[in-house]
């Protein structure tokens, strides 16, 4: 069966099928044989060419999480468009950038006003989460089109803070 996943925001294809006791998979370049056993809801044991791998797994609504040899991977279902966005930002149809909080928290200070010209890396706002202040910076040079929040507002990671016109 063919699968498509996003790993590190790159679309990857893999095909996997069961053949008697082993799984055969093809990653686009090479075919491998693997003995894959689920040990528990959160643990898979994989043998490839007699090398043993222990993989921890978990799944939430949208993502699969794996820990392989101490390293965490998040594998997600493919989405329509991922390029051109930075985390915490979204491009609107008019080409402006919606700057969002990277985490839920409280707006401590808005450091700019509407119509201000801003430089890349200039601090736009300060959001506090978990008792630490985090500066939200501009990713590009531009002009502040609209400010959607005021100091003291609680925000989640989806609410736009500021609209920036590059």
């Amino acid at each position, binding site marked *: 069966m063919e699968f498509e996943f996003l790993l590190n925001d790159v679309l990857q294809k*893999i095909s996997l099928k069961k053949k008697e006791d082993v799984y055969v998979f093809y990653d686009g370049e090479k075919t491998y044989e693997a003995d894959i056993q689920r040990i528990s809801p959160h643990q898979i044991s994989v043998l490839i060419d007699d090398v043993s791998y222990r993989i921890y797994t978990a799944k939430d609504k949208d993502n699969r999480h794996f820990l*392989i040899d101490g390293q965490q991977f998040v594998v997600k279902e493919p989405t329509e468009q991922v390029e051109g966005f930075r985390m915490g930002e979204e491009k609107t149809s008019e080409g402006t950038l919606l700057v969002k909080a990277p985490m839920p928290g409280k707006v401590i200070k808005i450091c700019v006003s509407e119509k201000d010209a801003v430089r890349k890396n200039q601090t736009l706002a300060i959001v506090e989460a978990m008792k630490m202040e985090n500066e939200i910076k501009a990713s590009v040079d531009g002009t502040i089109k609209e400010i959607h929040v005021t100091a003291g507002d609680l925000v989640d990671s989806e609410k736009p803070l500021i609209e920036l016109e590059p």
Partner: protein
Amino acid sequence: MFKKIMIANRGEIAVRIIKACQEMGISTVAVFSDADRLSLHVQIADEAIGIGPPPAMESYLDIDRIIQAAQKTGVDAIHPGYGFLAENAAFARRCEKEKIVFIGPNSDALELVGDKVRSRQTLEKADIPIIPGMKGIVKDTSAIKAEAQKIGYPVMIKASAGGGGKGMRVVYTEKELTPALEAGMREAKSAFGDESVYLEKYIEEPRHVEFQALADNHGNVVHLFERECSIQRRHQKIVEETPSQALDSELRARMGETARKVMQVSEYNNAGTVEFLLDKDKNFYFLEVNARLQVEHPVTELTTGVDLVHHQIKIAAGEKLPFKQEDLEQKGHAIECRIYAEDPRNNFLPSSGKILYFKEPRGPGVRHDCGIYSGWDVPIYYDPILAKLIVWAENRETACQRMIKALDDYVILGVQTSIRFLRDLIGHPQFHKGETTTHFIQDHFADWTGEKDSEEKQRLALLAAAFDSLHGTTSGKGSQTTKKEIYSPWLSLGKWRLGGK
């Protein structure tokens, strides 16, 4: 001895203290905010009582609510843990008034050492070496500017009421002073409810070496040697160890005696820590007294064999220390790593969300002080510390290897953590050499991104995802459904989405 103790805290430290009480046959009462109803400390305590909404100001920092809860449950004593009300003299005084024993120093000593300006004046008179700095708190910016000029840049802004890095800023030029003061005062206000800040000379290339002390109510004071806590990020300790590589036995004895003297001059009782900065020429300066049980207390416990929480409780109950200074010795080497919910690849932003799966490392010489479990939602309201991993071994080299192995075996899925970063840190050649100053992270890990995902591991991740899809019970199939969401770990927040219903 007490019959029932309230633990006025949350997270791993509440769990640690509750277990100590239970070991001593003392009944425990946990307190919790609405955001912590399902937290581990609530589950393991004998009784648990709600104290208000999630913001700490309205729950864990609300003295009236804590006292009411203590009276309602009929406790003899309150253990404040660290942070929150632990170093709040008004709280200690209120406990004294309400005839509830505060497990910590007496309120006069707490007030003295908590007032970092006044304590410096007192200790300076007793010939304790002090870093040049402000002699008093000034609230207006121009006076602070003048002080900064007098002390000489770089200067450090520190919160008068606090510790733990909150409110701290280093300022290198006068231009940076005003914005840094504003931010420092805001952070101080939100963390400690007091916006007072002061300045001191910033010593470059220093080591942070602190001495643990225990003082009973009968005038006996011992120190339990040092902890080296130089590995810090944003002035927040993340790795601590003992013994320090920078001390020899002569310097250790000298600093230990100074620590004891600080406690005696301050008329301090219960557990406390005397912090020093050690410069590269081995001059040491008194920094402050941390008038509480500290986050990093386990490394001392593992190397001295003394359970600090047990002794805090016994001292508070009026017992005499059962040992003298000459009875104490350090054995082997211990290291602690603080496990935070934060993303080291993304400027260490706090990471909240559900812990989908969690498995702690085990083995000889491995201790894990922990406040989390699989399925728990990490709330956004509090410090992002999840747990502490502590190892002990016969020597530093083995302790480092043991820590690396334990970090490798540590599984947390669902939130980002500092585990991988810590592993690389302990494995760094300069750490191995013991070359640890407070600039270690800045010097060696400023641009850390971690090991690049190898093709082999990526392939395994895809294989596991495909296997999961093939056998999954849900939609699976690497489905073609397209969602308009952009990816961000912050989006998978479940019920903690603010402003939603």
